């Protein structure tokens, strides 16, 4: 277990800013030393960087360098818009999901590109192009020796660089486990024929199995960033980590609050079995998938002091507005539980500021973010 120093600098604080508009999530961290880092990035409009909430937030604060940029897993709701960060900011360290290197990464990119061409869906196509752009920009940075990459697996220290287990501020990974990575690679291999031709895409949810999960530590403060870590990933982490490693002051709920985003006993560990102050949960809804679910919310509520959400979402109790043509829309609502998808790209922001003793010294909700 790592040593934790008690800070003497009372003005130093750790800031976490979580953005979401109903699809996709971005997390900005301001380290106690003043460095900035980003975990995942999402914007709906790829051709307009001024609408990228993460980039604009950083620019507004005069940030030109990111100490780290982390891509938790290859889902477009976590990487769309990341190329704009790589293009417009100096990124020193790039952390990404493990398991795919060199030709394997090319295969993943190939599967995304061919799948996009087959489906002829413009959104998928742009997402596949964005993934390749991100990886291309990372390569460019590595070639120019301005960026260093780390493929994340298991429980390891990522920050500071070089690693210092006695540092006051540290970032550790807890997922994906080697086990999950191996399964992912096996599954991806089945997407290709023996002669290397693309056969079919990996089921969409499979990419979550390599999602990076992070522990951000500042003295006695611990913030858990769950990425899209799924149940099996959490089970591996619970086996690997000591219970005190997961004692959290705040948790970015994994997988947008889905029923598969936690496992038995996880939230008990995160909350220290209610023997300490309960953590604050931050949720980033994914409206199209009906996330967060009521079941997950009810479960989290038992173990969290409060739940902050980045935007509005449909709870099971609200049937939603029905628009014209009424006959058609009423039918679709009955048959598909169909609801109108908001075209608003109004990103809400949940901000928490912590000292090194586990105290939340400031919390802020920028609408439509709210507390449940």
């Amino acid at each position, binding site marked *: 277990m790592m040593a934790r120093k008690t800070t003497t600098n009372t003005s130093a604080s750790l800031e976490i800013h979580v953005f979401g508009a109903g699809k996709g999530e971005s997390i900005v961290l301001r380290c106690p030393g003043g460095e900035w880092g980003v975990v995942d990035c999402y914007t709906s409009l790829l051709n307009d960087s001024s609408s990228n909430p993460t980039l604009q937030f950083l620019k507004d604060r005069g940030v030109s360098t990111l100490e780290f940029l982390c891509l938790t897993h290859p889902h477009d709701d976590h990487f769309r818009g990341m190329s704009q960060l790589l293009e417009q900011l100096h990124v020193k360290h790039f952390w990404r999901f493990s398991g795919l*290197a060199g*030709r394997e990464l090319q295969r993943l990119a190939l599967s995304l590109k061919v799948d996009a061409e087959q489906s*002829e*869906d413009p959104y998928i196509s742009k997402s596949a192009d964005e993934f390749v752009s991100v990886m291309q920009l990372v390569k460019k940075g590595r070639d120019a020796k301005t960026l260093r990459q780390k493929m994340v697996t298991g429980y390891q220290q990522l920050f500071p660089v070089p690693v210092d287990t006695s540092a006051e501020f540290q970032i550790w990974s807890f997922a994906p486990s080697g086990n999950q990575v191996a399964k992912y690679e096996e599954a991806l291999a089945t997407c290709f024929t023996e002669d290397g031709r693309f056969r079919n895409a990996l089921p969409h949810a499979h990419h979550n199995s390599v999602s990076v999960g992070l522990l951000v530590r500042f003295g006695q403060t611990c913030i858990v960033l769950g990425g899209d870590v799924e149940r099996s990933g959490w089970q591996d982490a619970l086996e690997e980590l000591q219970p005190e490693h997961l004692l959290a002051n705040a948790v970015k709920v994994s997988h947008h609050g889905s029923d598969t985003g936690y496992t038995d006993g996880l939230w008990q560990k995160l909350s220290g079995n209610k023997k300490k102050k309960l953590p604050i949960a931050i949720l980033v809804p994914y409206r*199209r998938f009906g996330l967060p679910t009521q079941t997950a919310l009810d479960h989290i509520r038992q173990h969290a002091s409060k739940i902050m959400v980045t935007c509005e979402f449909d709870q099971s109790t609200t049937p939603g507005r029905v628009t014209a043509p009424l006959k058609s829309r009423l039918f679709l609502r009955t048959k598909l539980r169909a609801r*109108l998808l908001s075209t608003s790209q109004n990103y809400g922001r949940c901000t928490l500021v912590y000292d090194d003793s586990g105290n939340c010294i400031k919390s802020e909700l920028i609408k439509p973010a709210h507390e449940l």
Partner: protein
Amino acid sequence: MQRHDFLITHSREDARNDRKWSHYRLHNFNMSGGRFSSPDWFASFAPTDEDFSDEHSEPPSLDQVTSDPSAKLLYLEAMRSLERDRLQPTWGRIQQMGEKDYEGLMVAFKELRHTLPVIPVTVLEEFVGFVEQIVGEVAYVTLTTNTGESLYGEYAASEMKAKGIMERRRFKCRTIDTGTHVKFDLEPIPDRHISEERERAILENLRNELGDNDGPQDDY
């Protein structure tokens, strides 16, 4: 299903009901001075809820039947058949009087069907659908209109797959008003074929763009 199927007496209970209704209608017919009473006529042929399921064709609506003068002929033919088939109990057994013969009625009905106006099927809305993700038995779908309005919802994944609609694939969706109820049609949008040459070209581009040296040797 043929509409005259509803006339077939298939149980003792049905037979009793048919007889009761037959007398009731004839009584009304006489009381109204022999005036044709279309709602009563239609009631005798009214299908059950089950017959309105998606798989069945639709019966003529009340307005459509009564607007046609030949409906009266059909009614009279039906009454004749019902009278002929009037049942009577004998020693605890149900027997029919005379031979059961619906041929005349069927012929009349077939003729009438040709003269009835076809019920217009109205397409209410057309969407391009997209299966965002399949989780277990649930397919999460997005439906987008040609004006760009989007709806999202859930549907049984097995039914989507049965129609050949897979995850991360598009499909056509139409909501249709059949006159009596609304239903929807789902149809997959077939994948574009990507040739081996095209695939090789994409891979070659990716090799150039991403390189081969993305391995742990460059990790820190």
